[in-house]
């Protein structure tokens, strides 16, 4: 039995920037090992866990793919100047949240450091009393320049080091909750499916590279050829300064995506199920694109009916993202119940309205 909160705290504390997911993948693999029948790593670094169908039918079982990206945003060293590191971002980061952040530089060894805003007189005139762009910030490791040169190289990764913050009422804050919160939800789903009868194969996939290339989702869906795919991701939580019409309250339920990345009949099926299970949800309107793995899943091979399920999260892409454990459990339960109720006829119902 995996406790989801400690598991989530463990995976948000592990490095795993886009394209370099190995440290976090190892921890997820360990958790998924007893929950799956088959476990392997893809060529692009995604983790595939298969929960095999166990209900006897005369036809081969169709398969369902649950994708939660495990890669995290962070920084990468671009230059070393007098012992200070210049960095660029992996994934999109607002440089205005960076000064004063504790980080870990993954050099020849892991070095703790700080993202720092140089004093005004060392900056271009236009940045002295305005936000300092990423190109003028440094990462300071506290080492002497000679040791920095020895321990760090251009291209080394820099992870956020903000420790997980447990808050009252089952709230967790920290970095990389986008999208390890969804990895936790898929893990909760696998756990709920233990001992349950399944007519479909269920592929749990912790995808790589979502924040940069969507390469994990696209290639995973191609390789596994599921009949249906669901991207599980985070969505904008209601928070100070964020427009109310684009955000969803944290702790009050999950969201069901709606838009061109999403098959309308699949959306409807999830909605009906959530209603039946009395799982609170809101419809997350994504008029052009979902900004999730669904963009890759949907267009793999000859195309796959795809859905997006999201967990509201405050302060996305900052080191103090905030989610509700209750919402993660809700997402996990909905995913498990959806997988369990699939039968041989489901695909026939997945039709376009005439």
């Amino acid at each position, binding site marked *: 039995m995996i406790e989801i909160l400690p598991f989530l705290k463990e995976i948000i504390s592990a490095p795993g920037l886009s394209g370099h997911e190995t440290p976090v993948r190892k921890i997820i693999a360990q958790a998924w090992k007893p929950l799956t029948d088959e476990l392997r790593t893809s060529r692009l670094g995604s983790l595939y866990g298969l929960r095999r169908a166990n209900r006897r039918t005369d036809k081969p079982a169709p398969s369902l793919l649950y994708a939660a990206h495990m890669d995290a945003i962070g920084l990468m060293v671009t230059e070393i100047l007098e012992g200070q590191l210049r960095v660029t971002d992996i994934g999109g980061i607002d440089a205005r949240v960076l000064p004063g*952040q504790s980080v870990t530089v993954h050099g020849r060894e892991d070095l703790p450091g700080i993202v720092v805003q140089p004093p005004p007189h060392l900056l271009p005139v236009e940045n002295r009393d305005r*936000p300092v762009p990423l190109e003028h910030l440094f990462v300071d490791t506290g080492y002497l320049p000679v040791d920095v040169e020895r321990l760090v190289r251009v291209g080394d990764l820099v992870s956020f080091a903000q420790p997980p913050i447990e808050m009252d*009422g089952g709230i967790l804050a920290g970095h990389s909750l986008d999208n390890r919160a969804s990895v936790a939800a898929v893990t909760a789903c696998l756990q709920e499916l233990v001992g349950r009868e399944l007519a479909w194969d269920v592929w749990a996939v912790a995808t790589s590279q979502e924040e940069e290339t969507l390469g994990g989702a696209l290639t995973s869906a191609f390789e596994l050829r599921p009949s249906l795919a669901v991207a599980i991701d985070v969505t904008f939580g209601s928070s*100070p300064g964020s427009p109310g019409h684009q955000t969803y309250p944290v702790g009050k339920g999950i969201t069901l995506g709606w838009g061109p990345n999403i098959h309308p009949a699949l959306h409807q099926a999830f909605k009906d199920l959530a209603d039946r299970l009395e799982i609170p949800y809101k419809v997350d309107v994504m008029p052009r694109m979902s900004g999730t793995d669904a963009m890759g899943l949907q267009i793999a091979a000859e195309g796959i009916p795809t859905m997006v399920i999201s967990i509201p999260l405050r302060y996305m892409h900052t080191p103090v993202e905030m989610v509700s454990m209750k919402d993660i459990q809700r997402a996990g339960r909905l995913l498990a119940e959806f997988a369990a109720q699939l039968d041989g006829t489901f695909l026939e119902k997945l039709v376009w309205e005439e």
Partner: protein
Amino acid sequence: MTENDEFVPGIEIEQLQLLERLCNACAVSGDEREVRTIVLEQVRPAADEVKVDALGNVLATRHGQGENRLRVMLAAHMDEVGFMLTNDEEDGIFRFDTVGGLDARQLAGKAVLVGKDHVPGVIGAKPIHLTTGDELKQTITLDTLRIDLGPGNSGKVKIGDRAVFATQFAHLGPSIRAKALDNRLGVASLIELVKHAPVNIDLLAAFTVQEEVGLRGAHVAAYALNPDVAIVLDSTPANDLPPYDAGEQGSENTRYNTRLGAGPAIYVADRSTLSDPRLIRHFVQTAEESGIPYQLRQPGGGGTDAGAIHKQREGIPSLSVSVPGRYAHSAAGLARLEDWQNTLKLVYAALTGLYSEILSVER
């Protein structure tokens, strides 16, 4: 306790652990209780007299021996910059104001600890996905920032509670990273000096309050202690990073204030104090004779408790000596252990050579 004549000032595990406790303690100006508690615990066994005055300063005295001893005030401020909650907007969201000099550009995206119980909170920021290119070029102003204790917050904090950055003390190679190194470095040094006071002076230690909001603690402490001279122990910015256009054709950083690794910073002049030249000479001479590295802080802005102390009563000859530190008044400062050790060494050595004759020459 070590006998005075055997004492060699040094930074060992005991001093480091104390500094760690001091840095992780929360003591925003006006509410220095947590640091005061540690200070009292540390100085009570060593000091001849200890009192907490009307403003919350800790005044600890160690009497020396011999004739014509100088009464030397040593001051280190206990308070740190931070925040105070000003409005409860419900759902765990609080508006806040800053206490002490904080740059609004250093606040977003940080974890904080609120109130007596250190309730964890965060200062969030709008997701970059919902932020326009124009907005990215504007400072996120204080009036739009909030401290968020989470929607499940059960009302453990209230308006008026103080908050600090949640950064925990860490070792970074030869350096340390912590919040409030300004001025827990000074507090830790002064605790060490109270424990190992040179016998040739009367050591009047003032662990002061409210330095960051107007040197209020030092003002009354200097009056009460009525010393012959005062030495202020603080931390001063090391603005010693390369300029953005560093390089062969680029500019040079000529306004570094102090440099990390160059030793204790002796003040000649800052915004509020013109240091006593006799004390400057004595400290410089001591450093040179003892082979302790030192640097003269570039004269200019800034200030310490000396600004209040030197104008108290009929005037008190004063000098500030600081441990250089980068990124003061932000979530995470950085200082070099070697500089702290050399500061402690220099101050100790200078005090052991400090006699009333120093005041026999006119300023």
